[in-house]
């Protein structure tokens, strides 16, 4: 099973200039941030689904389907506990089930899901090298940009390693789900230690290999890949910027908020 999210599909989004893609990532986060109402978030969600379809990123969304579902479900549920506005539709202990809490909670869940979807879409269509180049073009120093992108590259490796450790300990009869939340957290010690030790070893090996390949000779290395800014990139930049302005406008003029009756 592939452990990285990048899918080589060569769609129009894949071929966009990396700076535009990094900018789009930022604008999507920005847009999601300004609105709360699910109806205001819906167009962004539809856009994500359409992009996932055209970029061939569906397998990644499918892999993470439970994360999306659980994120929306539990966020909605959690806000029914804390967001106690509007008349209750049904009287329940702890949970305040009102139209307002339902809409607000669902909106928050959708918001988190869209942030996750944006990241998945970005990583499905952007190579690590493009990410580095995009950050570099935006003024981020090469080493900082490389470190950020390396973290994206390493995270799946560590997750994969953690899953293997969980399997190894399960096979020794270990039950991770015994006890309350704190006891359960403590029961992950047999996972955390091997993963941490493995991560240290891997990081050390990688640091050695990087330097052995010349990482650090130059503060601004050259780039094998040329990223010319084409007309389509400028157009995409304008569209993305337009979405950002539109969503700020929605917020500014008072749309996109949740009205409490």
């Amino acid at each position: 099973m592939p452990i990285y999210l990048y899918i080589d599909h060569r769609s129009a989004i894949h071929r966009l200039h990396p700076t535009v893609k990094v900018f789009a990532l930022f604008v999507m986060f920005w847009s999601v941030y300004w609105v709360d109402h699910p109806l205001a978030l819906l167009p962004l969600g539809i856009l994500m689904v359409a992009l996932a379809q055209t970029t061939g990123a569906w397998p990644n969304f499918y892999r993470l389907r439970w994360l999306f579902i659980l994120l929306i479900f539990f966020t909605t549920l959690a806000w029914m506990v804390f967001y106690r506005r509007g008349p209750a539709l049904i009287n329940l202990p702890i949970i305040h089930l009102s139209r307002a809490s339902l809409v607000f909670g669902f909106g928050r869940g959708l918001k988190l899901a869209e942030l996750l979807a944006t990241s998945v879409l970005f990583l499905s269509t952007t190579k690590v090298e493009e990410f580095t180049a995009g950050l570099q073009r935006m003024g981020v120093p090469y080493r900082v940009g490389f470190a950020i992108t390396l973290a994206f590259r390493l995270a799946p490796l560590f997750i994969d390693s953690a899953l293997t450790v969980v399997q190894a300990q399960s096979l020794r009869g270990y039950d991770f789900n015994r006890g309350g939340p704190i006891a359960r957290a403590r029961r992950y010690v047999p996972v955390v230690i091997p993963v941490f030790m493995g991560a240290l070893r891997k990081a050390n090996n990688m640091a050695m290999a990087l330097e052995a390949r010349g990482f650090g000779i130059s503060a601004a290395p050259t780039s094998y890949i040329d990223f010319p800014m084409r007309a389509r990139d400028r157009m995409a930049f304008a569209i993305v910027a337009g979405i950002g302005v539109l969503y700020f406008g929605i917020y500014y003029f008072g749309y996109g908020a949740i009205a409490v009756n």
Partner: protein
Amino acid sequence: MKARGHFQREDAITERNETLVVTAEAGSQSAATSGADAPVAALEEVAFAYAGSDHRALDGVTLELRRGETIGLMGASGAGKSTLAKCLNRIVPAFEDGDFRGRVTIGGRAIDGSQVCELAPRVGMVFQDFEAQLFSTNVAHEVAFAMEQAGMARAEIAARIGPALEAVGLKGFDDRDPTSLSGGEKQRLAIASVLAMRPDLIVLDEPTTDLDPEGRAEVFALIRRLRAEGRTLLVIEHEAEELRGCDRIVILRDGAVIAEGEPASVMGRLELLETSGVHPPDLNRLLGMLEIREHAESIDHAEAIIRAHFPDLPRVERSESEAVEIIAEVRASVRPETAAAPEPIAQLERVSFAYPFGPRVLDTADLTIAPGEFVAVIGQNGSGKTTLAKHLVGLLQPETGRVLIAGRDRAGLAPAATAREVGYVFQNPDHQIFAGTVEEEIAFGPRNLGLGADEIAQRVEEVLAAVNLGAMRGRDPFLLSKGERQRLAVASVLALRPRLLILDEPTTGLDYREQRKMMALVRALNRDGIAIMIITHTPWLVAEFARRAVLMRRGRVVFDGAVRELFARDDLLAGSSFRAPEATALGRRFGFVALSPEELAERIRGFA
């Protein structure tokens, strides 16, 4: 140390044991040579002790690497091989705290003021862990990485990528994701990325440790090509037969060079190799057993030597009809292992499996493991071996088909539910070790099963004795050697008293001595009645230890039978990236299917 046998030319060997005998040539190597005649690299009285260690990893090593020379560096784990290699580009002492002494020169110039990255254009290094040395999302970018760091112009980088990929046989792979390559391809990519920099010296630190036989063959074929091109290479390796083509062999022990010379001189010194943790070539072992004091450079050469001494040996042309005869003979001589089995411990019935959106990894696989069996599961990387094993322990659920454990369908059961029936030792022992002491690590499993304190203590004692770690019971597992940690991983699973023990590549990363120790333990467990299923890439290990072989290809079980029969089937071996050990392959030419040099020697002696 005395050279034994007339084939060992005393003048070709430099011995540096307790008496520190050094040849005139080696002794005359000057520290300050420079210019065109300077060696590509030289170590002069280099010593290094890691911080916190009371012994030296390197202890006064003096060694020259001359232009165009290929040196094979061998020795047990911990002998100092990797430390020596890392001194050549200053990873030691730049990355490792410790006490460094002596002098290292590259092209005649001392490197003590240099940074590791500054040496990248001069010294290229390929590491054992290929996952840790590939950073890019496509093959061309990977090759370009070091050149980008060196600030080369885009046109120059582009001009070098093609030839580098072509040199390692990866032409046309430019756009492939490195993670999608096989192990052998990944290592060849790592070599290509080093080659593109055109360094003076290429160091390969056990580059084939995690590879299947085909991957190993690919990498060593590439090394031979690079040697023919006149590159200067230092190759670290445990298997002596792979280094027969080197110009010079150097053996390290306890951080010091104890022998140095041409392969023909060193390879025949079986005792020296074995005591240095190196697997001596089977052909040399065989000749030694037959009291023939010659060095065989290949199977053809060994055949000629042996026929000269045993002219009555039969000649077997490898025609299909004769192969069939051999197989028939083998089948007649092998008692089916499963015939007497009362009830299988584990069964796979037409199991198929695929990851979401992925290709089929298991394809209608059938397998039955009976009590007391010793089964080797082999096949190239990605053939489905580990996936098959994970179905047996419930880490994966079949898409179609079913898995039975002790006659019970394991569908819906948690992995832990069958821990008493089937134990699984992961390839990397560090994936399970976490406790503060060896004893606690072993007690973890029985404690999870809810056993009483007396029972746990008894099991800990039993397995400590079985794996011979009693003296280390109070030690921190993270401070043990790789071989000891591997045995601890076995012990911690054994404490659950499984009837079937699955070991996934248990000898990976171990030197020959540790491999033998590990396999002696596994054999002893099998003799005590535990069924063994071992996943491995190592042909000699299958030949010597397993009785039944299961060969997998693209998710299918393509052979399930006696090991001896497998090694008589050239058709199967050729199509599965597996090969018979050299002694077995040689024996086939005389009409035998011998599983070890000892067995072959006995058969040959019958024709004296």
